[in-house]
Structure formats: C-alpha cells, structure tokens
C-alpha cells in the first residue's frame, strides 16, 4: 500500500501545490511536465475539524471526523482524523489508509492521529 500522499512542486519557482493543478499559481509556469512529484509531510497542526453525522452512502460508521491540517512543509491537507477529542492547534501525524470504499474501489488518503 502507498505510504505517501503526493504534491506537485513547480520546477521554475519551487511552489508546492496540493492538489495538482496544471498552471503554477505563483509563477504561471504552464508546462505540466515542469512539476516534480514530492511527498507531503506527515506531521502538522490541526487547524479545524468537524464530526460529520450525516454520512455519504459509502460509509457504515455512525460519524466521521474530518479536519484540515497545516503540515510542517507549509502545505495544508483536508483529511480524516482518528482522534476522539480533537482540538484546534493540536499536533497530529498522518498515515495513508483506506478513506472510502465502494463496491469496486478502495480509495487511499491521509488519516491523522494524535502525536
């Protein structure tokens, strides 16, 4: 199983984008081959979160904890949290896991826990 979520670093100006985009938002570089694929950092701070109780059909749990994390490399990621009582500003560490599963596909993404 994959161990990283990847971001896209502009070869011209170094700006890292997550998720992928075709034109660099900082310098305007527009050759899509001019992005290096780099792993996102795993550690970061929780910016905000929610417990979602009305879940999409693919989930069988009662609630889903979702959050936005500011990573050590300065990027942000929206992800799932495996944390009982999240708090804004807490330190978290992520690992890649199954975040959604339907009849045909397992979708992988970042799941964060307390450090």
């Amino acid at each position, binding site marked *: 199983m994959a161990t990283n979520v990847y971001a896209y670093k502009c070869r011209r100006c170094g700006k890292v984008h*997550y*998720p*992928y985009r075709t034109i660099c938002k900082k310098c305007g570089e527009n050759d899509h081959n001019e992005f290096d694929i780099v792993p996102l950092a795993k550690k970061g701070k929780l*910016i*905000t*979160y*929610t*417990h*979602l*109780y*009305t*879940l*999409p*059909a*693919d*989930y069988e749990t009662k609630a*889903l904890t*979702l*959050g*936005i994390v500011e990573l050590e490399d300065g990027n*942000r*990621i*929206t*992800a*799932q949290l495996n944390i009982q009582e999240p708090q*804004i500003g807490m330190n978290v560490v992520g690992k890649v896991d199954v*975040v*959604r599963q339907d009849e045909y596909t397992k*979708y992988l*993404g970042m799941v964060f826990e307390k450090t």
Partner: protein
Amino acid sequence: MREVYVAGIGITSFTRLEYPLVEIAAYPGLMALRDSGIKKIDHLYVANMGSCRINHQSGLASAVVDHMSLTPAGAETIENGPASGGSAIKQGYMAVASGLHDVVMVIGAERMREVNSLDATDFVATLTHPHAEYIYGITLPSLAGMFTRLYMEKYGVTSRHLAMVAVKNQANAMDNFYAHIQQEITIEGILDSPEALTNNPYVADPLRFFDCCPVSDGGACVILATKDVLKKLEKPMIKLSGVGQATDSHAIHERKEPTDLLAVREAARQSFEMAGIKPRDVDVAELHDAFTILEIVESEEVGFFKKGEGHIALEKGVTKIGGELPINPSGGLKARGHPVGATGVAQAHEIVLQLRGEAEKRQVKNAKIGFTCNLGGFGNNVICLTFVKEEN
C-alpha cells in the same frame, strides 16, 4: 451597453413537488409571462445543476422551450453549481445589454427530491474537489462545519448567533406562501431546552439540523428586457443595475485565510461599482444562507458590516424585517428552501417583489435598492446582483 430591466417574475412553491422537472421549470415561466404581459421571447436560459444526474434528463432548456411552445426561441441550460441561477441571470443580462436580444426569459429549476436524501447530499458533494476532498467523505455540511468552527474561534460567533439566523429566517418564511419551511422556532426549542439535542441534532458540529437548508424542489423565473419593451408594458421599472462574479480555489484548504470568502467580496465589489452605489445604500438583501453561518459571513464580505461584526448586527436586529438592512425576508435558503439551480433566480424574484412593493406581510418599507448574493460550491463561484427601482 443597453440598460436591462425585469419585465416579469414567477415562482413555484419550494417543497417536495410531485411533477416532472420540465413542468417545475415551465410553471414559473408561465407565471412570469402572465405577470409581464409578454407573449413572445427571444431566448430562454434554464439554470439547473442536477437534471442529468438525478432526473435522467439532459438538454433541459430544449425540453422546456418546447414544453412552453416558445420555439423557435433560442434556449440554453446553464450549470454552475448552486450559483447556476445567478449565472443564468448574468447570461440573460449580457444578451439584452449587448443588443443581441430584446426579451430573455431566465428560469431556475431543480427537482432534488426525486432521489433520497443520501443521494441528494452525495449529488451536492460532487461539487467538492474529487481527489483532495470528496474521497474523504467531505460533503458541503462538513466543509461548512469546519468553516464555522474556525469562524467561532476567530470572531466570537456562537451557536446562539447561528440559532438567531435560523429563528429570524424561519419567522420570515411564515409570511412567504412559497417557502418550504413553514414552522416557527424559538432559541429555547433548538438550543436551550432539555429536548434541544433531539429537536436539533448535530449534523457537522458545530452545525446542527436547524443551521442547514432543506433539500427542496422548486422553480423561479425572471424575464429581462430592454427599457423600450418595459415602457410599453406599464410595469414597475426594476433595473438590473449591477452584475458581479468572481471565483476562488476549489479545495478550501488552499485558501490563504480559510475564514475569508474572497469571491463574495470581489463579486459584490464589482456589482456595487457597476450600479454606482455603496453597500450601505442597499435597502433589502437576499444572501446565500445554505448554512446559517454563511448569512453572517456574507453580510460582512459584501460590505454591509465590518469583517467579524456581522453577528453583532444580527444581535441588534439590524437584519430583521423592520431593521435598517433586512436580510432574507423571503426566509432565505434556510427556510424558503434550496433547489440548487433555482436559488439564484428565486433570490432575484424576492428582490423584485420587494422593490415593487408586492411582498405583502414581509414587505420591507420603501425598498428602492435590492441585492442578491448567490454562492456556488463553498464560495468558489459567486454572483452578486444589484437591482434598483426607478420611478415610472
């Protein structure tokens, strides 16, 4: 560019409608034709977000134009998420202003309750970023929940403020025959009483059931025309004076300041500048309160109140009917309902009623300038319109 006026309006009840989407679109169109006295249009725009996905119908505008026997007028379907309605009005504005057409019909219509609520929520969640948000189980309520938590932390907004928006808008909707939610609620019932958790459970905390708009079916229509056409109709002269639109990042986490809705700020600025007015000149506004927090935030971003002070204005009653700047007299998305593609047109419908002085019990006194803010995604595509009443 030519000046553009509203010649006629129409609306269906917003609720669960047991008739086909094409008819949900056609009835408000028919009402608007009757209202205006116009028999023939040059062009039809139909705003809709989900017909292909949830109603098994593509080419909606072609179906509607024929259903209404308005052929051979041109017809196009406009899909721009929950901002489809505002977008379609903007297209109509451009067609008339440019000189291409003299009379344009703009309909917004949606039939979301043909599917169950899980499918409807999933349908709206397809607006989110497919790789960076959707796969995690992110839905619009969860984005709103995370946004609300940050906003509370930063600006001191509380659950009580959110409940005040819900109570105000549901009270307004009691006087709107076409509104989906016809239920008066109290802060005690949804927040303070021992039964509050049962009455008002959490959806995406801190957001609760009464912080979220319902899933509705419904349609609305405005007919736009030139000044020459309007003069012959002897209708009140309601001018579409300002049109603004702006976009923002798709994934919310990419926004520099996740509590800002920059697209709202920019779209409103454009709309006011074009109309030549200032935000505080507005007499009545319809804002996109798909979640209660959004009414507060938008009231700041469009420039009615300073950033972080929208909830204070709410507390003081400024945004009630009878206050200095009533917001969502129709009940808003919260209580009138939110058939996604129809909402932007329904907002314009309410403002035209208000400026004409035809809003009956919910009439805002002496309303001369009206404003709408129609939000797509979670603020990634926003259309703001300014309407001004001119003396005949």
